[in-house]
C-alpha cells in the first residue's frame, strides 16, 4: 500500500471517529454553556440509547432504522427526565452539588444497565445481520473504505446541519443561546427557562444516542460501561475545542479523532496508548490554552 492510499484510508477512519466524538461532545458543551454543569451522565445516556436500539430491534424485531429512531427519541426523553429529576431541583444550589449529582447519575445509569440488561456484552451487529450491504467495500483512489464509514460520515454531517439550523435559525435555538448568556433576563422575556433547558438536554441526548448507535455499528458490542470512554473523550473534545462553544465541540471532536487514528496508524507500537492521547491533549490544552481552541476567555459571573 502506498503512502497516499494509506493516508486516505486513515483520513476516512479519522473523520468517522472524530464525527462520533463531536456528536457526543456537543451535548456536553450545550449543557455546560447553559448551566455551567458538566453532565457526567452524558456518556451513559449514549449507552442507554444503544440499549434502546438493541432491544427495540431484538424484542419487537423492528427494522434497524425504526429501532434507531425509537432509541434516539427514548434517549431524548431520558435526558429530559434526568434534568427534571436530578438537576432541576439543584438549579440554585452551589455548582458543586449539581456536579456531584451528575457523577452519581452516571453511576446510577451504569449500575441500572448492569442489573436490567446484564453485564455481558451483547453483539449489536446481529440486528443488522441482513444489512450486509453496509459491509460492502468501496474502492476510492486505491483505498478500501467500508460503505458503513461513508454512511456514518454522511449521517453525522446531516445531523450537524440540522443542529446548526436549530441553534442558529429557530426561536428555541435563540432562546438557548440567550440562556447561555443571561438566565434571569431570558425569563424576563417571557421564556420558560426550565422548558428550554429541558429541550437542550433532550437535544444533546438525542445526538449522543445517534452517535452511540453508529458507534455500535462500527464497534459492535453493547455493554453497560460502553459509554464511559467515548463519553470521557467527547468531554475532552469539548474542553479542547472550548467548552460552551458548539463549533468548538466539532473542532475538538475531529481533532481527537484524527490524533487517535493517525497516531495509531503511523506509530503502531503506540497503539496500546490509544486512550492516553486524548488525556495528553487535555493536559496540554489546559496548560497552554485553558479556554480551548474556540473558547472565549471565561468571565466569572457574579
Amino acid at each position, binding site marked *: 500500500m502506498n503512502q497516499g492510499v494509506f493516508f486516505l484510508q486513515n483520513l476516512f477512519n479519522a473523520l468517522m471517529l472524530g464525527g462520533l466524538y463531536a456528536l457526543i461532545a456537543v451535548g456536553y458543551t450545550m449543557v455546560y454553556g447553559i448551566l455551567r454543569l458538566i453532565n457526567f451522565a452524558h456518556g451513559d445516556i449514549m449507552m442507554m440509547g444503544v440499549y434502546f436500539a438493541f432491544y427495540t430491534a431484538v424484542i419487537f424485531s423492528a427494522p434497524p432504522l425504526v429501532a434507531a429512531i425509537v432509541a434516539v427519541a427514548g434517549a431524548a426523553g431520558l435526558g429530559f427526565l434526568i434534568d427534571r429529576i436530578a438537576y432541576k431541583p439543584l438549579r440554585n444550589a452551589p455548582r458543586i452539588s449539581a456536579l456531584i449529582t451528575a457523577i452519581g447519575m452516571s453511576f446510577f445509569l451504569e449500575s441500572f444497565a448492569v442489573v436490567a440488561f446484564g453485564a455481558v456484552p451483547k453483539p449489536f451487529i446481529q440486528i443488522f445481520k441482513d444489512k450486509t450491504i453496509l459491509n460492502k467495500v468501496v474502492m476510492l483512489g486505491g483505498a478500501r473504505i467500508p460503505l458503513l464509514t461513508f454512511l456514518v460520515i454522511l449521517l453525522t454531517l446531516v445531523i450537524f446541519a440540522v443542529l446548526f439550523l436549530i441553534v442558529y435559525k429557530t426561536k428555541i435555538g*435563540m432562546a438557548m443561546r*440567550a440562556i447561555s*448568556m*443571561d438566565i*434571569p*433576563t431570558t425569563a*424576563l*422575556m*417571557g421564556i420558560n427557562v426550565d422548558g428550554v433547558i429541558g429541550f437542550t438536554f433532550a437535544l444533546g441526548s438525542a445526538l449522543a444516542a445517534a452517535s452511540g448507535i453508529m458507534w455500535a455499528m462500527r464497534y459492535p458490542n453493547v455493554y453497560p460501561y460502553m459509554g464511559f470512554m467515548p463519553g470521557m473523550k467527547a468531554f475532552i473534545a469539548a474542553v479542547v475545542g472550548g467548552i460552551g462553544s458548539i463549533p468548538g465541540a466539532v473542532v475538538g471532536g475531529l481533532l481527537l479523532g484524527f490524533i487517535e487514528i493517525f497516531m495509531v496508524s503511523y506509530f503502531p507500537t503506540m497503539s496500546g496508548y490509544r486512550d492516553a492521547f486524548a488525556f495528553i491533549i487535555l493536559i496540554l490544552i489546559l496548560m497552554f490554552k485553558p479556554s480551548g481552541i474556540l473558547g472565549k476567555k471565561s468571565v466569572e459571573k457574579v
Partner: protein
Amino acid sequence: MSEEIVLQLENLHVYYGAIHAIKGINVKVPRGKIITLIGANGAGKTTTLSTIAGLVKAKTGKVVFEGRDITNKPAHIVNRMGIALVPEGRRIFPGLTVYENLMMGAYNRKDKDGIERDLEWIFQLFPRLKERIKQLGGTLSGGEQQMLAISRALMSRPKLLMMDEPSLGLAPILVDEVFEVIKKINEEGTTILLVEQNALGALKISHYGYVLETGSIVLEGPSNELLENDMVRKAYLGVA
C-alpha cells in the same frame, strides 16, 4: 380617584436572607400614567421591581396586576401577563444581534404583522437601532444598549413597562434623550413604572412619585408637588 389601577402593591415585604429589604410598601400605578419611585442607592427600588417581575420572592403582602394576584408568580408568567422590565444595567444579550435581541422581546407573540408594525415604530423612536440591526448587541455603545433594552421590552407590547435606572451611566445629553423617549412612549399609551436615582429627571416627566428610603416609603405625591417639597429638594435634588 376614578382612574383604573393597573398595578397595586399591598403591604409588600421582601427579605434577602436576614435582611429586610422592603418593609411593607403600598404603591398604586394608574393606567396611562408614569409613576416613579425615587430614592438613594440601596433604598430598595430595584428589589421592588424585581419582586413585581417575579425574579425575587415576596415574604408577605401582595402584587395585584389588573385585579389578579400575581405575587411570586415566575418571571416568564408575569411577562406573559403583560409586564415588561427594562433591567438595571440594560442586560441586553451581548452575543445576539440587535434584531435577535428585539425578537427575544417578542418571543411569545404570534402576530407577525403586529411585530413588523412595532419594529417600524421602534425604528422611528430609535433610528440608530435600525442602522445597527445586524450588529451584535455587545458591540453597541452604552446609550445604544439602553435604547435596545427599552425597545426589547416594548416588543412584548406590555400593558405595564417597568424601567430600572434607564439613565444610569449615560452621558448627560443622552440622559435627556432617554427621558424624552420615556415621555413619548407614555404619551402613545403605555403605562410606566420608573425607578430612578436621577430624581429631577424622573419627577419632571412623571405624574406621581414615591420616595423610598431603606425599604419604606417616606413620602408620596404628585410629581410637581414633590419637586417643590423641601425634603425632596434637599435630599435628592441637591438644592439647599
